[in-house]
């Protein structure tokens, strides 16, 4: 086994990735910001900042706060809207050899469907439905918390697009397999998880929450054990592929998710600590495969051996 024979590429339901490492939505802007620091070609894919039908200015500051081995964010889906994305951002991203995933969030099932219709005609590789953003008042996580809500939105969206359809799940539920199964039944091609855990930090001196939004979403290494558990549970419960994320910082972490059942992984918060992490992560995955004589990454998916 040597570097040459190793196959890191994977085709998940038509979403072709040259390697399984994808930038997680909301942590990588539209790629542009990182281009001075990283070769964007290193990524298997980039999931762009969550898009809405119309432009959104987002939540008032403060929007982020650090927590032990993690952070809370309440950006509030600031974005220029789906049309501006297609016009102003997509052409730049398309210059790179990386899959582009459009992450979308809506206030109503109809809005999701409308965006899907628009994006179906755009030069993107997949649509990721954010049914799990905890930082906006309407829609989104409200849908995502019930299997019925998920089923409806996914069904409506499915009608509008033949692009690979990823449904992103919130971890703030009692049983993660229920929304997963609902999404699968409604026609999702792929599931991605986890989005952020709802959290709160209070400033004891001002006696107010640190975030102007009061609560925010917890991400980063702190949540990794919860994410790995949920990816495992979902991979057991559904037959469609899963993209795993939550606190990944290294090839070791990525492989943990892959063994748990993920066909690909997304890296979010860690980009802030180490903008060059994507290269290290893929190199570490390769080294692991060489060490254990594995030529195709697919051989590892879901291969955890439970006690």
């Amino acid at each position, binding site marked *: 086994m040597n570097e040459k024979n190793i196959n890191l590429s994977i085709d998940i339901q038509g979403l072709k990735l040259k390697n399984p490492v994808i930038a997680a939505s909301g942590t990588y*802007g539209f790629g542009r910001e990182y281009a001075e620091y990283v070769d964007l070609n290193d990524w298997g894919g980039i999931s762009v900042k969550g898009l809405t039908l119309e432009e959104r*200015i*987002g939540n008032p500051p*403060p929007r*982020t*706060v650090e927590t032990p081995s993690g952070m809370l*964010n309440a950006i509030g889906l*600031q974005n220029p809207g789906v049309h501006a994305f297609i016009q102003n951002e997509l052409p730049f991203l398309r210059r790179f050899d990386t899959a582009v995933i459009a992450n979308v969030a809506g206030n109503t099932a109809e809005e999701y469907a409308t965006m899907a219709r628009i994006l179906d005609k755009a030069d993107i590789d997949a649509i990721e439905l954010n049914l799990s953003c905890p930082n906006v008042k309407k829609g989104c996580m409200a849908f995502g918390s019930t299997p019925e809500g998920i089923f409806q939105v996914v069904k409506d969206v499915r009608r509008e697009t033949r692009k690979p359809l990823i449904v992103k799940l919130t971890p703030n539920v009692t049983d993660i397999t229920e929304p997963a199964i609902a999404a699968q039944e409604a026609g999702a091609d792929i599931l991605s998880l986890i989005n952020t855990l709802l959290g709160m930090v209070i400033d004891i001196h001002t006696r107010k929450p640190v975030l102007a939004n009061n609560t925010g979403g917890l991400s980063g*290494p702190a949540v990794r054990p919860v994410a790995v558990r949920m990816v495992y549970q979902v991979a057991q419960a559904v037959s469609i592929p899963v993209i795993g994320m939550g606190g990944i910082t290294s090839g070791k972490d990525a492989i943990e998710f892959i063994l748990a059942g993920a066909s690909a992984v997304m890296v979010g918060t860690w980009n802030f600590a180490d*903008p060059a992490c994507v290269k290290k992560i893929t190199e570490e995955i390769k080294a692991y495969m060489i060490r254990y004589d594995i030529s195709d990454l697919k051989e590892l998916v879901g291969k955890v051996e439970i006690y």
Partner: protein
Amino acid sequence: MTKWNSGIVLENKRIRSTDIYIMKVRLKGDVDPSYPGQFVNIRCSKGTDPLLRRPISILRFDPAENIFEIVYEVRGKGTQYLSLLKQGEDLDVLGPLGNRFCLKEEYERIAVVGGGIGIFPLIHLLESLPEKVFADVFFGFRDSDRILWEILPKKDNIKLYISTDDKSFGYGGFITDLFKENTSDKKYDAVYTCGPKPMMKIVAEACMAKDIECFVSLEERMACGIGACLGCACRVQTENDKIGYGHVCKDGPVFNARKVVL
């Protein structure tokens, strides 16, 4: 020429008995130059806690030697980590980040108002001031121990006014009062300010009342430091007079006081 990504600590020393340190770092590689107002974002752990980088203003940059300097106050885990770094150790540093202080060709007389850790980016500005520009500098410190004589600029075209909160040196009281008292009759081409928000607000309002250009350098909690996470939002006036959000790390840290809501 590339963005900064790593350096080696040449010197890291405590300033007398304060909790303020000055660090000198040599960058690796052929790096972009930096300009007054910009900052670096430094990784402050080997593990995951603290997780996020810490933004620190660039105090000086020597393009010939690829050396930059920062001054920082130990506040929490991140800056404590920095204070423990020894000569020869590696530093994981992103930079130069953010925009710059705008100093127009035609400016002849400026004022600079800084408080606390806000004085550091202003010192970079003052040190690179052309000789023909005169500057009245107003710096406020908590007490006389914290007056950083070591880095205060001494030049003929710079006049220094100092205040201390505890009245232990210079003017006893708010730096904004000292500023107002000494400038009521003066007309500056521009005023530059960095420090606590209430201070900057007073300075900005005084300037706008007299129609003087005022540049404020803001702080906000940051995650990425490069404009990707949209975390470091600050309220700005958009064209149609509505409120929107700018981002301190990318659109700032320096803003025209007229365009930002303090």
